[in-house]
């Protein structure tokens, strides 16, 4: 199946053209993508380390998770929205890019790992919640989560080093800070 024309339509959409062609929108979107990633991985890492048994072992797993996982979702929402914006700007090149494809596969496995943990492993969490040593299935979930998210980050970074992207901003004018704030106000106009 070939979805090339579908992704070409996304790339040619108003939002795709806006991100690609408006001064400094792409760098700013990219910055927020990185901040989203930091929030996702930083929070889920500490939860995973608790599952593995290397961090916060005197605190019940449910409390560690409850403190942090909502922030994982905030970070994920930020990373997803900014990721979609960057994707729209160069949709066809992302679509055929091997690193991007592998990143999406790793992302899908990270999601699958989370679903299996929530639906199967965590079902009897009340029994081992306060234990320092969690069951093997929970330790596996923590280890798999860290591995998959690191893979997502590495592959994501590699996308930027593969050729064919229109990642450079349009030529800047003589304005300094006005460029930055001008782009922020453009984003605000576009969002609402």
């Amino acid at each position, binding site marked *: 199946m070939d979805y090339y024309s579908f992704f070409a339509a996304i790339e040619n959409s108003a939002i795709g053209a806006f991100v690609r062609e408006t001064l400094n929108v792409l*760098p700013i979107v990219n910055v927020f993508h990185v901040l989203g990633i930091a929030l996702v991985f930083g929070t889920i890492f500490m939860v995973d380390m608790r599952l593995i048994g290397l961090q916060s072992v005197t605190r019940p797993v449910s409390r560690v998770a409850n403190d942090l996982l909502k922030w994982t979702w905030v970070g994920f929402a930020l990373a997803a929205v900014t990721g979609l914006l960057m994707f729209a700007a160069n949709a066809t090149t992302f679509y055929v890019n091997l690193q991007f494809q592998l990143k999406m596969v790793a992302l899908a496995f990270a999601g699958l790992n989370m679903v299996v943990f929530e639906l199967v492993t965590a079902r009897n969490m009340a029994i081992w919640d306060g234990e320092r040593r969690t069951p093997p299935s929970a330790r596996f979930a923590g280890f798999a989560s860290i591995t998959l998210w690191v893979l997502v*980050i590495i592959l994501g970074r590699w996308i930027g080093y593969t050729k064919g992207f229109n990642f450079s901003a349009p030529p800047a004018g003589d304005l300094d800070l006005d460029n930055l704030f001008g782009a922020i106000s453009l984003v605000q106009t576009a969002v609402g």
Partner: protein
Amino acid sequence: MHEFASWLAGTAFSQTIASSLWMIPAIQSVHIVTFAVLIGALLIVDLRILGLASKDQSLVVVTRRYAPWVWGCIAVLAATGLLLIIGEPARELLSFSFWVKMSLLVVGMIIAAAFQIHVRNNQASWGETETVQPATKIFAVLSFFIWVGIIAMGRLIAWDADIWGSLSPQP
């Protein structure tokens, strides 16, 4: 700084890093994973200060648990950051974003160290009190946004001249 950057770029170590296709992205990946963990550790402590998480634990316990992560991550970030400077001296040392980042880094580390010393010196009272002073909350939010700024400036190095215009050194 131009002279220093070109001298550094001429060293064998710099050329080893620069001539490899995978070294720079690999070091950057470690850098990203590490600052993500740092953000996680900082967020937990700041959420405790704000009273938004871990309220059943004293600030002393939370700080003691996550301070090693903060300083460990900063050490790894310094090492990988240094490798990136050696590998791409002009890109880093001649970039306005880089120097804003370094300035924010100094402020961020001073706040983190001062906070840790303050908590250590007041262990008894922290252990008993559930909430913290408003000034501490302001510092927690301020410090978090300084670290967010450090990450943002790090990423903006790639678009330095586009973002900062004439503030950025011209090629």
